[in-house]
């Protein structure tokens, strides 16, 4: 009976969420090429911009915006009713590279390096509000691979929110691109480290 009690306690401690955590997300700012017709694909290259004080879901090192990029490829346009475009099927990657600076003049400079996270975009809705250039987008990401995927528990890899503020203002648009994408991808809840504890330490608490 006592063993059953302790086992129950141990399971509770190891699976309990941590104390209230600060918000976490990957913030990115980049440029997109949009498709001309249904069936075409959207490509987006960006740098991760958590150089401020927002924590990233995975610890990143060094000058983040110089070292980490976020890239979306093959996001296919499925429908367009003039107000809302529906996309699906794309891939999203977070890449670490401290050798080749990302350069919007050469999209390949965003994709070289080590893919630390890779996932699929389940769906993405791009909504044009029709006034004042107001456009935003929202979708869902499942992480499926990458060199650091195992740092995220399997249950925490699914249904991350992808939210984007989209602009075509000249002030934020780089020549050759169609749209500026300023957004973030984030888990439903902050990712917490596994809480390792010894049996002895756990018993001491009782």
């Amino acid at each position: 009976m006592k063993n059953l009690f302790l086992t129950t306690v141990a399971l509770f401690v190891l699976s309990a969420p941590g104390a209230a955590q600060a918000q976490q997300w990957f913030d990115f700012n980049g440029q997109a090429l949009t498709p001309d017709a249904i069936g075409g694909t959207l490509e987006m290259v960006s740098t991760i911009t958590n150089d401020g004080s927002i924590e990233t879901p995975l610890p990143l090192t060094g000058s983040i915006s110089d070292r980490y990029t976020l890239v979306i490829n093959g996001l296919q346009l499925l429908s367009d009713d003039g107000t809302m475009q529906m996309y699906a099927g794309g891939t999203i990657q977070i890449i670490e590279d401290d050798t080749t600076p990302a350069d919007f003049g050469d999209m390949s400079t965003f994709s070289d390096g080590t893919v630390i996270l890779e996932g699929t975009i389940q769906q993405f809705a791009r909504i044009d509000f029709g006034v004042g250039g107001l456009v935003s987008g929202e979708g869902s990401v499942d992480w499926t691979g990458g060199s650091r995927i195992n740092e995220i528990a399997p249950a925490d890899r699914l249904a991350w929110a992808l939210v984007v503020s989209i602009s075509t203002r000249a002030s934020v648009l780089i020549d050759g691109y169609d749209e500026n994408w300023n957004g973030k991808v984030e888990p439903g809840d902050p990712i917490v480290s596994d809480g390792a504890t010894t049996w002895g330490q756990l018993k001491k608490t009782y």
Partner: protein
Amino acid sequence: MRLQTLASLALALVLVSTVPANAENFILMDYSGYAYETGGLGDGLPSDIGDVLVLTGVADTYDDLFGVQPSSQEVTVYIYDLVSDGGVVDGEFLRIAYSGGKIAVYEDAVLNHDWGTNPPNPELSTFTDGQLLFEGDFTRFNLDLKIAGSFGVGAGAYSGDIDGVGGTAAQLCDGAEDCAYTFGGAFSKPIAVQLPDGYDIQIAGTLEVDAAVPVGPAGSFSAIKSLYQN
């Protein structure tokens, strides 16, 4: 002849000093955060006439011209006193115009931002501590939300024009009206995640300030005169 020369000099001076800023003369800040409106907003809640919208954010990146030291300084954005006109339902959209409204941007050596829960709350003071970097009055602010349809319900966007009235960056405005602009995505439930209790909207936006361009030696009267001395 002398009068003609002086007239040419005067015209040249006027032309040089009124050269409009080009796209490269915007200084940019990228921020993320949360917003709330008195009485709630989104997820089935309307925006009632007189409701007041408050947006709070933390800058992720900023132009070097802001003079902020990344990592050792926190930049926070506080937008307040935006009064709703009650909004208009336009098909699948709720379109809200706000009157009034102010923006204040602070740089702070203490990285202490904390949204807390159920605003307004004491934690909001962590967005208004530090040194005032930019302060402005909104001359226009609009927020649109998608409130119906099969997809994208809860997605929105906002934009506003700003007169700079204070802070270091406002000096870059050089007194020009509508010298700043903010734009962002706005996401209410069910899209918004990690939304602290009591907040209605998640935001991801940018602030652009028209940097008055130092025109250099060619902008001085003596420099212009020198053009006519050869």
